[in-house]
């Protein structure tokens, strides 16, 4: 018993009043544990089950070839066969030559002087003796609202392409036209539905197939863009385009033409040349790897190049550009070309010309030079087409809005011959690829005229109705024509209603006469002496 004295009061009951205590203050007590469920954890329920696939079926099969066959092939290298000539060791060669030489000389001499075969011609093909229109191609989707601005046969002569557009724009072109091709050798040729239709977002003014690759075709648009398509592609056939920039044309492209690249060592390299109403003549080179065209060289035609009679007033600025309407390259010398211009002047130019031009308003990454080396007697209206003869190196034809056709010699200022058929404006003229003396011209009255220079009279030997009939009984003007280089009895014409006609010309007109080249030569060369 503890006697506790707190402030003098005896507190003795403290220990006695505490229950369950065995008179001890601090004792060991075991308490029961208390559990409580957490309310953020959910209790997971578990269940177990089993599954089994049905019995697997296994099969084993083996195979082995027991027979062997071995075949080999090898090509014979033909080129080695005659890489060298035979050696002649008999020593009789000199004797033999001595014996036959006089006879050979006699014959050679006789041949040059002989007139025995002068008018002698043999016709092997059955051919036709008449001219007939064998195809009439249209693109029904265009519905006659577009004119044929350009025609081109491809390098194999089987496919013809036509560019559609209009010549009578007043301002910016908002038409959606197309480039259509027809394969004339297909059996199921549909004359109203082209085989390929390439959509273009503005009027196409000209087109030209690549001379050796039958899939590449170039075209120039009203907006000044030069586009090259690759027809062998499946989806987007546009291979490359010059775009609308400082380097490309700002006015309608009047002509595109493929020219052999004389600077390249490889054969079959071509440059693309485009001419336009903005006076520029641009030479594009296709990069072999990227297949894009890049501006390689350029020329520009300015007022100061024009002959004085064509300059309207003395005070006309010499540094204003003059539109170029057509271009043609010489057959033998790919360095020289002729251009026709909007005022009517015809110029001889050279790819390597380096004439200075006043800067004017042209912005271009490449210095644009003056290509002019010689000026010919001019026409009295825009020159619509100029074409060098494929046979004679000096002869070229021009046709113009002044309703005349002129035959010039490259060496002479005045034309050798001026033809006025009286059929309105002559929109285009082309030489035949097979006969040196034959050329065609298309007129405003819807006719295709064929001229033969071996005839004495300056009248066409044939007049074919090539333009479609319009409402007032007149024929639609025929805007372009093109001879087929491979099938030399075909010529195609395109008219202002969007219709292409392919004519087969008679054999007498397609087979060259032996004196053709001579007569053409006489015409072109004789006058240079006078």
């Amino acid at each position: 018993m503890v006697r506790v004295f707190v402030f003098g009061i005896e507190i003795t009951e403290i220990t006695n009043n505490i229950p369950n205590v065995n008179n001890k203050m601090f004792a060991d007590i075991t308490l029961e544990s208390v559990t409580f469920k957490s309310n953020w954890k959910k209790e997971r329920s578990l269940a177990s089950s089993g599954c089994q696939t049905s019995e697997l079926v296994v099969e084993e099969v083996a195979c082995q070839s027991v027979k062997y066959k071995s075949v080999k092939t090898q090509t014979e290298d033909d080129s080695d066969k005659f890489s060298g000539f035979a050696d002649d060791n008999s020593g009789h060669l000199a004797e033999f030559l001595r014996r036959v030489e006089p006879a050979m000389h006699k014959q050679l001499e006789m041949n040059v002087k002989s007139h025995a075969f002068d008018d002698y011609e043999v016709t092997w093909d059955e051919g036709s003796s008449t001219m007939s229109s064998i195809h009439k191609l249209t693109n029904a989707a265009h519905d006659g609202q577009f004119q044929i601005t350009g025609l081109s046969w491809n390098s194999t002569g089987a496919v013809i392409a036509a560019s559609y557009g209009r010549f009578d724009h007043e301002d910016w072109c908002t038409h959606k036209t197309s480039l259509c091709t027809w394969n004339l050798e297909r059996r199921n040729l549909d004359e109203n539905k082209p085989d390929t239709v390439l959509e273009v977002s503005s009027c196409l003014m000209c087109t030209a197939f690549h001379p050796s690759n039958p899939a590449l075709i170039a075209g120039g648009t009203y907006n000044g863009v030069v586009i090259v398509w690759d027809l062998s592609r499946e989806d987007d056939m546009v291979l490359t385009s010059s775009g609308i920039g400082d380097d490309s044309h700002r006015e309608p492209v009047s002509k595109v033409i493929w020219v052999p690249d004389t600077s390249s060592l490889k054969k079959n390299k071509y440059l693309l040349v485009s001419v336009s109403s903005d006076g520029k003549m641009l030479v594009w080179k296709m990069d072999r790897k990227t297949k894009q065209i890049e501006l390689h060289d350029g020329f520009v035609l300015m007022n100061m190049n024009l002959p004085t009679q064509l300059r309207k007033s003395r005070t006309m600025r010499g540094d204003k550009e003059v539109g170029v309407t057509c271009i043609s390259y010489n057959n033998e010398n790919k360095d020289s070309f002729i251009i026709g211009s909007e005022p009517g002047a015809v110029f001889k130019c050279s790819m390597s010309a380096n004439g200075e031009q006043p800067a004017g308003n042209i912005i271009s990454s490449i210095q644009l030079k003056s290509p002019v080396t010689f000026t010919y007697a001019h026409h009295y209206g825009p020159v619509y087409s100029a074409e060098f003869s494929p046979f004679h190196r000096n002869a070229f034809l021009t046709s113009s809005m002044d309703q005349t056709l002129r035959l010039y010699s490259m060496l002479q200022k005045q034309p050798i011959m001026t033809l006025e058929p009286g059929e309105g404006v002559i929109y285009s003229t082309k030489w035949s690829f097979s006969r040196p003396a034959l050329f065609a011209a298309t007129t405003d009255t819807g006719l295709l005229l064929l001229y033969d220079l071996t005839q004495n009279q300056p009248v066409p030997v044939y007049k074919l109705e090539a333009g479609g009939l319009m409402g007032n009984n007149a024929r639609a003007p025929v805007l372009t024509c093109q001879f087929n280089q491979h099938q030399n009895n075909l010529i195609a014409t395109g008219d202002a209603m969007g219709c292409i006609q392919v004519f087969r010309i008679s054999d007498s007109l397609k087979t060259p006469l032996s004196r053709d080249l001579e007569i053409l030569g006489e015409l072109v060369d004789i006058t240079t002496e006078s």
Partner: protein
Amino acid sequence: MAEVEETFKRIQAHKGVIGVIVVNSEGIPIRSTLDNSTTVQYAGLISQLAAKARSTVRDIDPGNDLTFLRIRSKKHEIMVAPDKEYLLICIQSPHD
């Protein structure tokens, strides 16, 4: 041999001559002024034709023989002088 070259030059210099070829009796060219492929082509074809022409002449009259062969085409004339061991082929364009 200089003489052979001279003769060749003389014939080649004649007006309108495009090429001269000498072929042996087997049809293999010995000398030529044209390029390889053209020469081989002419040699093979012309020697066959000359042989055929010769046999034709002899068949009609066994006492006769071929002395000269001329083939005139639209563009050229081919003249062939035959012999026992050789064949001289000359191609000329008569109207220049």
